[in-house]
């Protein structure tokens, strides 16, 4: 508990750094949103008026102070583009993002773990080499190509999935609309995951305790699925956890092609519109989420690995 409190304190300098970096990038060198808000015909008074209402006419240090205050209070005001409350944007986007991400992570992790364990067990064999080279090839194709081809073939030509869409209920989304995006995500994630997890398993397979387990007379299945897996699960779980924040914002291609109202798509939209409150909020929120997930990953690490002492 003390550890958690101490780690939470450590968030402060990091968050401050994030604030500075974000501010530097978006306020100082980023675009001026007044012009896009002004519409087709912009006269100077209108622009000034907008700039004043947005606060971008203030000196930089005032703007920075406002930003810091926003971070502290968690109130990022309203979107410049739509006047919607920023906090609400994030709240409504998180659900769909997670609806795709969680199944994607769970399925790809389980499949990759199973496959990685098998190839690690048969390391050096023809199967192993073939699967590894297959994974390398699969990894070398851009996610863009996967999306284009999967949507075209599986949804359009074969009609197995809807081409795109997002419904109102979780069940509908999960079973109907998220299926193909999740499939694409799993296919993309599988190849690198198998390669990575295989190396984790190989590290464990050569450990002394595996020999002990065999010397005890345990069956191979139990040696692999209990003793080896439990140890390899530690780096795997950490790897999965640290992927989450990146995926949260990084799944924008999938979200755009399959019309999923997720965070990634919102980020791209906000960048295109220079909608700074949204960009700032999403960046700060995701940064905080990243830190919390990292902390959670450490706690999970502790739960999985009794050796770890959290200090």
């Amino acid at each position, binding site marked *: 508990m003390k550890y958690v409190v101490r780690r939470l304190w450590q968030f402060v300098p990091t968050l401050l*750094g994030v604030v500075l970096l974000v501010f530097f990038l978006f306020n100082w*060198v*980023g675009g001026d949103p007044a012009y896009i808000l002004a519409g087709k015909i912009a006269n100077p008074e209108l622009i000034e008026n907008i700039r004043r209402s947005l606060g971008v006419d203030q000196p930089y240090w005032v703007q920075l102070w406002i930003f810091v205050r926003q971070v502290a209070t968690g109130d990022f005001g309203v979107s410049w583009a739509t006047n919607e409350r920023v906090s609400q944007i994030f709240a409504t986007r998180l659900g769909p993002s997670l609806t795709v991400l969680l199944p994607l992570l769970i399925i790809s992790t389980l499949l990759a773990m199973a496959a990685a364990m098998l190839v690690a067990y048969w390391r050096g064999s023809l199967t192993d080499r073939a699967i590894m*080279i297959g994974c390398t090839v699969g*990894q070398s194709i851009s996610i863009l*190509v996967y999306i*284009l081809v999967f949507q075209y073939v599986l949804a359009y030509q074969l009609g197995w999935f809807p081409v795109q869409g997002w419904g109102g209920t979780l069940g509908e989304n999960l079973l109907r609309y998220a299926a193909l995006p999740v499939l694409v995500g799993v296919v993309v994630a599988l190849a690198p995951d198998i390669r990575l997890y295989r190396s984790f398993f190989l590290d464990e397979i050569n450990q002394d305790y595996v020999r002990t387990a065999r010397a005890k007379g345990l069956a191979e299945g139990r040696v692999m699925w209990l003793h080896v897996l439990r140890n390899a699960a530690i780096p795997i779980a950490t790897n999965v956890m640290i992927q989450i924040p990146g995926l949260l914002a*990084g799944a924008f291609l999938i979200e755009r092609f399959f019309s999923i109202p997720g965070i990634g798509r919102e980020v791209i939209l906000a960048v295109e519109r220079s909608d700074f409150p949204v960009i700032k909020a999403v960046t700060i929120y995701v940064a905080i989420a990243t*830190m919390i997930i990292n902390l959670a990953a450490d706690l999970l690490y502790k739960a999985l690995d009794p050796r770890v002492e959290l200090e």
Partner: protein
Amino acid sequence: MSLWRLAWRRFCRDRVGIVSAAIVLAYVLLAAASAAGWVARDWSNEVGVSYAPPGFLGRDTVQEGLGEVIKAQPRADYGIPDPLGAELADIHANVSGASGRDTRAKTLAFGGDKWGRDVVQKAIKGTETSLVVGLAAAVLATFLGTLFGAAAGYRGGWVDDFFNWLYSVFTSIPYLLLVLAVAAVLDQKGIVTVILVLGLTGWTGIFRLIRAEYLKHRVREYVLAADAIGASNARRVFVHILPNVSHVVLVQLSLHVVLFIKSEVILSFLGFGVGVDTVSWGSMLAEAPSELILGMWWQIAAATAAMALAVTAFSLFTDAVRDALDPRLA
């Protein structure tokens, strides 16, 4: 025999490694030849009709040119004189008729893009661009990561704290946002920008690894021994430890080349790619979505094939290098 030569021997025994190294080398040579202008110099020539389909049979050509020139004569001048009227009349008297027509092929061996440029030539030119982007960005990221990692891991103390802070700041911001933000900052578009965007944001992973290596090595006995004989800090960092972590650096460099080649595709898709005077695999793929649904698969096929082969070869090459350099085998 030094460890490098031993590693080289081990590498030579790895058949997949040799084949992939040969492919990588072939790509590098191709890129060099393209940069030198020996191949694909005329990639921007419009040799075929728009979206010329692939086909080997027949070299049918069509004449394309100005249908409109003469027709576009105004009905009246509505009483407004043209300040250039005299000169233009003079020109029209001398330059008669159409401005000429070009001869274009109806089909190209591997197909053409929307301007009728050969997709294979584009893919070759794209190889040059993408490899330059991947390599240069990886060198930049590796340089930063290694420098920071060495400083933090070796020096410890506040230097370590500072770089760790920088690391956590950079990794807390979603990669995509970071890339977009840096891309927006460096508003000059072009290869250099892409390299900077990728390099300046991609150093974190390398930093973490190199820092860990330096933490490990700085207490190794050979480093203490170097200290004992009076070797300076700089000498220990760069002469003693660096060669011993160089396998990590090399493998990371190679991994990041692949990573950045793939990232360039995404950047291009978002419009932050290379400029129009050149072409990359990413810019070819970015054109693909609308082409594919029209059944014009050849550009996406050319770019994907060129990229998949290169990236696969590079990845397998990296694996082989990693295995060959594995210090546990030494």
